[in-house]
């Protein structure tokens, strides 16, 4: 048997709906986390007791999908759709999952779902995207437009219209649609970079470059306001899923929900440093410095080289007045990332506080050479160089002081900062 027919057969086996008793699809659970195994076992037991209940099949399908058991989820959704033919949810979830493998195969399923609820805009957008992926651009255009009529604030529908315009070499229309998508979903990097490209195609590279540069700070977040699909991911019980959900809550400023997810994740697996570190960040944002510090310490104990944890803990210790601890952590952070200017500033600050002028000068020199672009870091560096310069003046070292003021002035001039004028005057005074 050849591989491709084998794949088709497996897919068919997972999706075919036999008459009579349907066997409960059971995934390979060796190595799965206990909470996941228990949840799936419980749902399987429900199903065996209520095998004619479409919603029970659907709930099982959602739990399977939440833990990426895709084949089994497809089979369960298909059975749910068969047994509950008037429910919109099951053909829609089935369509979205099938769509991940074959947009063409998902089209009739989306249509079946929309026949039950024609006004659910997220489904209409997904249908449009499936049309787009299969090269049916006119149909895609119609569906995107219909989705905009149903939900004028649907960013994905506007973005779809923009993509189609860009592909059709109508750069101006692309800019218009994608600008609207970006207004509605400023956190979405995909919309921003496509808009940047549209501007470049429309002849405005400068504007495009500005948008592209700004998009660098955006993550891979692709949030959709789709309550039905979101409800699937809410069911995931493995530790990573808690982190994923917490991050989604953080994006929307829902710190309490994020905290709850992270604590639940830690209950499932307390050995994951990323959960503790995320909790530390959430607690800090929520105004709980003691809780944040404790969580950060735990993350650092579990994985001292986890990205960002050493600088975070250094700052947290500094804020609590533990200068010695802050200095050790900041030096460790610099060992891990020699270019971290914010840690250089922290080392300089604590070293200056302790009267270690040699170390202070040394790290400020390094920070100056690094030419930080981040405005707040640059301002902090200018301030520290100025303070150091004044201290040197006070110690009767005018030449050395002038050197520090010269550096502060360089940075201020590079940033076109209004502070430059004052620094220039002070430097002239010192030199006199």
């Amino acid at each position, binding site marked *: 048997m050849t591989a491709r027919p084998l794949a088709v057969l497996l897919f068919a086996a997972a999706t075919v709906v036999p008459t009579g008793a349907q066997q409960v699809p059971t995934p390979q*659970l060796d190595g799965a*986390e206990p909470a996941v195994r228990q949840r799936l076992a419980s749902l399987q037991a429900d199903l065996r007791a209520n095998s004619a209940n479409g919603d029970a099949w659907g709930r099982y399908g959602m739990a399977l999908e939440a833990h990426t058991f895709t084949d089994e989820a497809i089979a369960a959704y298909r059975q749910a759709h068969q047994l509950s033919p008037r429910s919109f949810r099951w053909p829609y979830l089935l369509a979205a999952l099938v769509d991940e*493998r074959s947009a063409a195969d998902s089209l009739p399923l989306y249509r079946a779902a929309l026949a039950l609820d024609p006004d659910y805009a997220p489904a209409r957008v997904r249908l449009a995207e499936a049309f787009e992926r*299969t090269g049916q651009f006119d149909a895609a255009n119609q569906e995107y437009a219909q989705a905009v009529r149903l939900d004028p604030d649907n960013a994905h529908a506007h973005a779809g219209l923009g993509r189609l315009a860009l592909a059709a070499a109508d750069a101006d229309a692309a800019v218009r649609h994608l600008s609207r998508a970006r207004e509605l979903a400023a956190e979405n990097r995909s919309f921003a970079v496509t808009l940047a490209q549209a501007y*470049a195609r429309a002849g405005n590279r400068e504007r495009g470059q500005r948008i*592209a540069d700004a998009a660098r700070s955006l993550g891979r977040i692709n949030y959709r306001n789709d309550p039905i699909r979101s409800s699937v991911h809410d069911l995931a019980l493995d*530790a*990573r899923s808690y982190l994923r959900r917490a991050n989604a809550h953080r994006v929307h400023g829902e710190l309490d929900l994020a905290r709850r997810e992270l604590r639940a994740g830690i209950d499932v697996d307390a050995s994951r440093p990323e959960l503790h570190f995320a909790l530390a960040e959430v607690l800090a944002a929520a105004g709980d410095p003691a809780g944040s510090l404790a969580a950060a310490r735990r993350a650092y104990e579990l994985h001292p080289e986890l990205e960002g944890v050493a600088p975070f803990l250094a700052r947290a210790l500094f804020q609590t007045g533990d200068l010695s601890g802050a200095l050790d952590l900041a030096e460790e952070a610099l060992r891990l990332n020699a270019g971290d200017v914010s840690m250089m500033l922290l080392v300089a600050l604590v070293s200056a506080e302790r009267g270690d002028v040699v170390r202070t000068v040394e790290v400020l020199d390094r920070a100056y050479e690094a030419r930080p672009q981040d405005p707040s870091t640059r301002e902090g560096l200018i301030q520290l160089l100025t303070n150091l310069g004044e201290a040197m003046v006070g110690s009767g070292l005018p030449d050395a002081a002038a050197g520090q003021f010269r550096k502060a002035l360089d940075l201020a001039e590079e940033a076109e900062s209004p502070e430059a004028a004052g620094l220039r005057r002070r430097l002239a005074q010192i030199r006199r």
Partner: protein
Amino acid sequence: MAAPVVRFVDVTAESGIDYILPSGTDSTYPMPAVMGGGLAVFDADGDADLDLYIIAPAPGGNRFYLQQEGGVFTNATAAAGLEGDGMGCAVGDLDNDGDLDLYLTRVGPDRLFVNDGKGVFADRSEAWNVAVPGWSSSAALLDYDRDGYLDVYIARYVAFDAARVCSQHGGRRDFCGPTEFEGLSDVLLHNLGGTGFEDVSAAAGITAVDDAGLGVVAADFDHDGEVDIYVANDADPNNLWIHQGSGRFLDDGVLQGSAFNRWGNSEAGMGIAVGDADLDQDLDLFVTHLITETNTYYRNLMLPGFEDATIDTELGAASLDLTGFGTAFFDADNDGDLDLAVANGAVKRRPSALATTGDATAFWSDYVEPNLLLLNEEGRFVDASALAPWTQLSLSRALVPADLDRDGDLDLVIANLDGPLQLLRNLTIDPGAGDTNANTSNWLQIRAFDSRLRRVAIGARITVQTPEGARLVHALPPGSYLSGGPATAHLGLGASGGVQGFEVVWPDGLAERFPGAAANQVVQLIRGEGQSQ
């Protein structure tokens, strides 16, 4: 449309190569074990036959095979001085002494092997200063400063931490993905007159980003006479480093439409194919990706810029359920347009395993996949992988097209993790006694040679005037993934008995015209012997 037939046959068993490329995987799921599997196809000993270097992530796993008469290969690893391990490589004459040297990328310091011309290599890593830290993946050769010596661009991957534990499918242990780690900035090594390298990455501007680089090709994408660099990044936006002309590069991938796919998403970029797939006289790009992402075809519009034309070319559907790595544009059937081959194999457990065991080891049975052959039918690609050997399930990585048996069609070599190498002989020409499926298509292989430098002029742009119109080819290694290969250009001619002429733009900008040639031969175009433009 019925899939057209181009026949390949697996001749590995007859080749004398029975080596199983060791991944080095174990119960800790070390990430390099699932990402490695490199390959070099090159004439190491100057006898005109192509030899093979197999690169394995497991310690001591590399093997070097010399091709002998009759297409049989013999293990010459120790005698050639090529023992060790690694990820990938680049092959070229780095000291301009007329033979091919080997740059080996690794998880750890890279290595440089200098050829004595007879296929015996000396490890000159220290003298040449190639101690690139971290995880190097693919490498590309280019002469960006036009000093006649080949420089090296090294794509680097992630700051891998073996202590990190990753899982999926309800918490089942699995290999980590790139987003678990920080990406690494790439490295550009400037060749100091064939005696060593200087790291010029910062001065070149390429340290501005630290993405998870896997595939890399170097070519003049905008025809401004300066060589550019395209890097496929895993989960990060791809880079299109446009050479500004003074050793400085600027990443213009976003505005030129080659950083993100049509949907504005960065994908899991692995390998790269480069070639003029739509026959419009510029270089297009094809990047392989993860399962649930399609592979992506970036059509060069020369605006300058690219568009994602995956949908128009029908290249999406075949790849959606597979994880692609090595890939190459090559004219499989010598009909004058470029076809595609893709080596596949998952990096995390598939949602539906295609094998229980079979040819796959039990460990990899959830990961193995079939490879793809996609034939170009007037700009649309048709899946022609329904027959053996394309149905073989394996964990494939590097893929290199090369005319191993020198019969005028391009064969394929594919490296498989914890599996045997695949030597796929192309039966388009010389199908064997009694076979009535012989294709009568003609071909040319073109070597753009610079006798001053004693080597192929990597990067030379060659426009061939054929009866069917102008065709663009380049003196470029195949790109692909963790691979090095011949920089001989191959052109299928269909029924044409020859070509009317060649125009070559050499890497230093000199343009020359050469007279035409009859089909079915290797043509050598020597710099300085043509008519200057």
